[in-house]
């Protein structure tokens, strides 16, 4: 949702605007100012700025999210090995501590910037912006942002990326989408990682994971793969190729893409009235 097109007006709050207008006096002389802006509007403004950066440089930005240890970095390593000659790839790594992940990516011959968040449990648009100053976007086709391993907080922060990809490793349990609905509802693609362990574990049902995802009204594709063993990587690589193509076509049309949740909100509410104009000074 944004603060300009009126998409933040829902059936639950429209009466606040339609009633007395934007600035109303209460009985005891206090004034009530109607605001209706996103609580995270500072982050959203920065995210919009980041997205413009990506679009101007023709970069597709993908936000990788999962629990810690689901294999985000391993998937990136396998992706670089498979597509390194096809696309120019860069990576921003988010972790509470260490440069370990960035070093793993650099060892593959790809530029990587590490964001060390200290105690912060997620990346936000400002942290990413600072990191973008340390990477040359002109020399990239795809920028992967490997978010902090966490199934809760990263879901709330738009970074300015184009697509959300969420990993669920088969060691975690197939009911994770039901337990972390905010995270999984916002994903554009669900990757069931470490699929080589499916047979050994015997208690993870990929069909059940997909059912739990569909229960969140998600239409995102679901694919199982093993980055380490190189099993069924093709669907993932084809998805990436299609996304790079789609991003190039969007840029030729002068369009941009926000991750799955925001445009939905805008479409839902577009028939409703925009907020009253700001009162003059």
């Amino acid at each position, binding site marked *: 949702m944004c603060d300009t097109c009126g998409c933040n007006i829902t059936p639950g709050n429209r009466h606040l605007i339609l009633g007395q207008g934007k600035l109303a006096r209460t009985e005891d002389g206090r004034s009530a*100012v109607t605001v209706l802006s996103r609580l995270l509007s500072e982050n959203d403004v920065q995210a919009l700025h980041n997205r413009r950066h990506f679009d101007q440089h023709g970069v597709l930005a993908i936000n990788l999210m999962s629990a810690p240890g689901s294999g985000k970095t391993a998937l990136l390593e396998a992706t670089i090995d498979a597509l390194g000659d096809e696309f120019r790839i860069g990576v921003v790594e988010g972790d509470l501590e260490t440069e370990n992940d960035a070093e793993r990516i650099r060892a593959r011959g790809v530029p990587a910037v590490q964001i060390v968040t200290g105690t912060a449990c997620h990346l936000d648009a400002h942290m990413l912006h600072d990191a973008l100053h340390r990477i040359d976007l002109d020399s990239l086709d795809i920028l992967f942002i490997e978010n902090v391993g966490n199934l809760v*907080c990263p879901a709330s922060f738009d970074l300015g990326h184009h697509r959300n990809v969420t990993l669920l490793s088969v060691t975690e349990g197939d009911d994770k989408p039901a337990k972390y609905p905010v995270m999984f509802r916002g994903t554009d693609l669900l990757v069931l990682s470490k699929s080589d362990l499916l047979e050994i574990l015997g208690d993870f049902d990929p069909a059940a994971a997909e059912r739990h995802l569909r229960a969140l009204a998600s239409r995102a594709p679901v694919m199982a793969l093993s980055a380490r063993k190189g099993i069924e990587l093709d669907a993932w690589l084809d998805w990436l190729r299609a996304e790079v193509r789609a991003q190039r076509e969007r840029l030729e049309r002068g369009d941009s893409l926000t991750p799955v949740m925001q445009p939905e909100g805008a479409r839902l509410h577009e028939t409703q009235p925009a907020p009253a104009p700001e009162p003059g000074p």
Partner: protein
Amino acid sequence: MHELAVCQGMLRQVMDITRREQARTVTRILVQVGPLSGVEPRLLSQAFPIASAGTPAAGAVLELESLPVRVRCEQCGAETDARPNRLLCGACGDYHTRLLSGDELLLVSVELER
């Protein structure tokens, strides 16, 4: 736990409005936090006194409102109640639904005293 950061961001918006309206103190802040917003209302309430200390909003009442999770079905058109982890149509059970309310994270209004 990013509720303190969310609260600080909200207060920066409230302070901008306070300055613009040339008000002295903030008496009430109304916020909508939906079950699917990713922010926990109880933690936001706990963060507020810490984040607002020493600001014109220090004594303000922070009122949190939660809207029900509701969906509209694209298959049968029904509008029904749903749960955060079960956003299926309550009438026909299809998953092709759109969220009508429940993901709000909105600063709705601010009450000021001059």
